[in-house]
């Protein structure tokens, strides 16, 4: 999943996510939620609500125990 250019971006590694929702609780923009789909491990994984709204603050990354999130930012 290659993020679009010049926009605050977040990459979610679906197979690593365990749906613990720590990021969901933490996102200051309330911009993450648990999705409907299940990954190979059997977990519902998270998805971003509105990519535009994400400001790349990285708090979701900070709290993710499974390094399932990557944050990109304009240079």
């Amino acid at each position, binding site marked *: 999943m290659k993020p679009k250019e010049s926009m605050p971006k977040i990459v979610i590694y679906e197979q690593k996510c365990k749906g613990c929702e720590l990021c969901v609780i933490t996102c200051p923009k309330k911009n993450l939620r648990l999705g409907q789909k299940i990954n190979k491990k059997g*977990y519902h994984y998270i998805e971003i609500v509105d990519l535009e709204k994400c400001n790349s603050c990285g708090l979701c990354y900070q*709290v993710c*125990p*499974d*390094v399932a999130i990557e944050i990109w*930012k304009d240079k």
Partner: protein
Amino acid sequence: MKKVYCKPESMTDIEHKYCPGCGHGLVHRLVAEVIDELGVRERTIGIAPVGCAVFAYDYWNFDVTEAPHGRPPAVATGIKRVLPDRIVFTYQGDGDLAAIGMAETVHAANRGENITVIFINNAIYGMTTGQMAPTTLLGMKTTTTPFGRDKNLAGYPIKVCELLATLAGTAYLERCAVNNVKNIINTKKAIKKAFEMQKENKGYSLIEVLSQCPPNWGLSLKESLKFVQEDMTKQFPLGVIKDIYA
């Protein structure tokens, strides 16, 4: 576009076997970030415990050895003494560090071994599915305290940092938590300081991390975070317990 937050080089791509929300994964990442930031990945040797973190060698991207249950401090001592310029750290649970490994913990600390100890206090034996740990709170139900931990039968939760603070060999002891962003960021700072001290030959440091174990606490993750915040920190207050350089 540039990656601002991503898997540190000191972590592999292997997926953790931890339960959702488990603090182990968090602390693994913090340690890896610190090692990256200090640029010591290629001269770091980690010692994994017997406990849920036993597979840590799969997750970290540097040299790691196993140690028998409770003996990481002795193994670390053996390594550090023969390779004093390497960065050597142990990563241990509360059973490993404070129950079976108490003697090795106290003595490595007292010798002032120039190592870093990352101590995951989840108040439970995670790996063996939920028995009482030395740090289990009074009244807490575990699979071996089905009626709640009773001080008359099983004694008190041990405050490891406070215990080790009495030893002349310890340089830096801090207690942190990973139940929210603020605490996570703090934990990283503490871990970084501990590794920096080792780099500068400043002696023994131990970072205690209060860590959630939802399945074995019988709580949801949210309840677990609250349990850390409200109950655990009451018994185990956060903060620097000792810093001889402060």
